[in-house]
């Protein structure tokens, strides 16, 4: 089974940070990058089920590190797509670009993370499925393959699970906890650099800037620090004093 896994290098904002251009973006000096937590699980699921695993990302140079991590774990090939026209691309624009990249691989299965931890759109995977006209299911907590079909447990709200069957090819979004992601050993990390890692721009995928614009779902007007709510009453003092206050509050509220 050939499986394509779209992944994302996500940004974590430092505790103190600054915005640029009145809020158009976070100053990159205050960002740290890592592979999206959900993608650790989708990659692992692909490695367990696939004969050939291809990882794809849309991102600038810093995303190479995430691809190398996937290659070190055992993915066969990687593709990174970047173009200045993709600056600020939203989930649906990224889905359109991924569609061009994933489509040319004719995969049996596409596994995406449910969401990325920085943007939390939860939309890229299913948007991608729409462009490829693939059957799709969101939020899988278990997958088992049986010939040309999959049995999938969808994780619904409130501890409910729906068991669903779907034929291949298909696209699933994968929830954390579905498996135990492996770690790559040092040798594999070294060898990852020998594996194919292709870099393409929009033209390389046969796309133009207007294709991306047409696919865009929204425009970012600005980022701002959210207005704080009323906030918690902060308990001060030593751990002992904090514990004493907590016990008083608990006792009072439980008897109320």
């Amino acid at each position, binding site marked *: 089974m050939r499986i394509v896994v779209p992944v994302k290098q996500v*940004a974590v*904002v430092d505790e103190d*940070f600054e915005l640029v251009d009145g809020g158009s973006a*976070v100053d990159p000096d205050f960002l740290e990058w890592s592979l999206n937590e959900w993608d650790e699980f989708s990659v692992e699921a692909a490695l367990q089920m696939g004969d050939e695993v291809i990882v794809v990302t849309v991102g600038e140079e810093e995303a190479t590190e995430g691809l190398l991590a996937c290659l070190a774990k055992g993915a066969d090939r990687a593709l990174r797509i970047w173009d200045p026209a993709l600056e600020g691309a939203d*989930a649906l624009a990224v889905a359109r670009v991924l569609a061009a990249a994933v489509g040319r691989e004719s995969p049996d299965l596409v596994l995406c993370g449910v969401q990325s*931890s*920085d*943007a*939390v*759109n*939860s*939309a890229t995977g*299913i948007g*991608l499925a*729409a*462009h490829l006209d693939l*059957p*799709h299911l*969101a*939020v899988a907590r278990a997958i088992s393959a049986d010939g040309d079909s999959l049995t*999938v447990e969808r994780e*619904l*709200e*409130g*501890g*409910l699970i*729906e*068991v*669903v*069957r*779907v034929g291949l090819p298909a696209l699933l979004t994968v*929830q*954390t*906890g579905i498996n135990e992601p492996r770690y790559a050993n040092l040798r594999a990390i070294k060898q990852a650099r020998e594996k194919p890692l292709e870099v393409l721009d929009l033209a390389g995928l046969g796309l133009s800037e207007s294709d991306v614009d*047409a*696919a865009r*779902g*929204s*425009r*970012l*007007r*600005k*980022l*701002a*620090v*959210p207005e704080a*709510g009323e906030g*918690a*009453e*902060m*308990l001060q003092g030593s*751990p002992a004093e*904090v514990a*004493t206050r*907590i*016990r008083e*509050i*608990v006792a009072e*509220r*439980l008897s109320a």
Partner: protein
Amino acid sequence: MSGVLVVAEARRGELREVTLELIGAAKGLGQGPLSVAVVDHDPSRFADRLALDGVDAVLAVKTPGEHFEPHVAQSALEGLIAAEQPSLVLLAHSIDSLGFAPAVAARGGLGFASDVTRIWWEDGPVVGRSAYGGKLEAELDFPGRDTVLLLLRGGTFEPAEPGGAAPAWREVAVELREPRSEHVEFREVEAGDVDITKADFLLSVGRGIEDKDNVEQFEELAERLGATLSVSRPLVDAGWVPGARQVGQSGKTVKPKVYLALGISGAVQHLAGMRGADTIIAVNTDPEAPIFSVAHYGAVADLFDVAEQLEQQSG
């Protein structure tokens, strides 16, 4: 293009409460006629619940299958949008919506945003949503999009009050796609030895406890304090604690008298499951942890230090 189309959400024959929140949000915008679409095997079963002030019409689309199927739902919504030409479409940011709404937006070239927590109207809709783990809010608009589809975060918008005249009921003939997946069954996540939704006092721990071997210590602390132990998602994902103890969107929604969170930073999905607690007390080393935004009492402290003191003081 005019008016607002709310897509009701139902599961196993029950209307989900978030539907009323969508209607409340739509009413608040005051942007033309408000229709509620019911895509279901038997739409009429929700007629009473949808008799709400401000709802102008219920648009019923009957599906052949009893349960939600994303490709059928997708074609139903595409057909409804083509027939009704709404300027705004509102759905819940729910697991079912995530399975088809982005596909509708992608195929239709619609304006789109998910996990929306604020909406207002300028020349068109403008929305606020959280970014970078709640540290920032992103403000989005949708220039050049005649129809905008939004997924609204549950528990955020005021629900429409029950009561009102029955709205006009209209069956809408929509060409539905064949299902591309097959429902097998519903299952509850493994039932545990406890029902955390019944507890008055929950002691809740998360990633902060660092090690599987520490779970037992917090079970003992909970017992000593007269609390029930609950957890956030990472501990269930890691297999340290059974799923029945999980609080959050994919776990249980709890409303205890006291919720004491030790070392839980407060991801959105976790907050969704516990913000209804009467009193929330949070202990975390990170003063910026989102849990403090919903807590009534907070302490910036190491959870192990506080836990040790709680244990000692409880004799």
